[in-house]
């Protein structure tokens, strides 16, 4: 468990860093997929197996495909120079770094009300129950949101016909 955690954490963070630092956007996308898979493994460690599956399906699957399509549609020229840093990279790096430290301090100094109870073994059924009872309205809203996003994406991305 300990070993698994550290392994997954290093892989995930490493590939995330690689995604950010890589100058080739396509490789960045691939590292992103690795990151997502690592996160899915983290879910497994957290005994959220259903979520791990969803993570793989949606992130590593759908979203990655999306991104790749996006790259294909927009990127031209030298692939090695497609993913450069902007001028404010240094400042952004500093902010991120400080934020990491702050976050760590805050987490470590906080006293979490950790419970010793065991998580349920069977999660899918419970999630389904929660979603269809207590969270039925957000659930429906998300459904509508997805529909709207779908339509919106189509409309936005559709080529505008030049009128006269």
């Amino acid at each position, binding site marked *: 468990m300990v070993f698994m955690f550290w392994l997954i954490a290093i892989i995930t*963070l490493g590939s995330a860093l690689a995604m950010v630092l890589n100058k080739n956007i396509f490789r960045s996308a691939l590292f992103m997929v690795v990151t997502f898979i690592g996160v899915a493994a983290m879910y497994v460690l957290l005994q959220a197996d259903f979520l791990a599956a969803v993570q793989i399906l949606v992130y590593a699957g759908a979203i990655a495909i999306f*991104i790749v399509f996006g790259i294909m549609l927009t*990127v031209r020229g030298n692939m090695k120079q497609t993913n450069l840093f*902007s001028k404010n990279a240094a400042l952004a790096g500093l902010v991120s770094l400080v934020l990491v430290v702050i976050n760590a301090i805050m987490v470590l100094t906080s006293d979490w009300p950790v419970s010793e109870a065991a998580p349920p073994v069977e999660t899918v059924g419970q*999630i389904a129950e929660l*979603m269809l009872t207590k969270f039925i309205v957000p659930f429906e809203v998300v459904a509508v949101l997805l529909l709207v996003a779908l339509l919106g994406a189509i409309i936005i*991305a559709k080529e505008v016909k030049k009128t006269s």
Partner: protein
Amino acid sequence: MIGLNHFLVFSGTLFCIGLFGALAKRSAIAILMGLEVMLTAVNINLVAISRYVTPEYLVGQVFAVFVIAVAAAEVAVGLALIVAIYRNRISVNVEDFDWLKW
């Protein structure tokens, strides 16, 4: 023993890496990728707290599902926007996008 703190620090670090990507990259698509990483990091937080603080309820996971759904929608719209902008500007370099300034 791996506790809650480990997961929270991990997710925080992942979030910050995503943030760095979103703030420091030129390509709009790279920014989008950074955003996705940030969202995932948040999900880990949700799930981890749910697992360690209230293990018997799976509300955190339900939330994470919603976040994933929203993230998917966001990526779809975001990419559509990028494509549309690209069509206009032949560029996805956000440094060229300053229309917010009047």
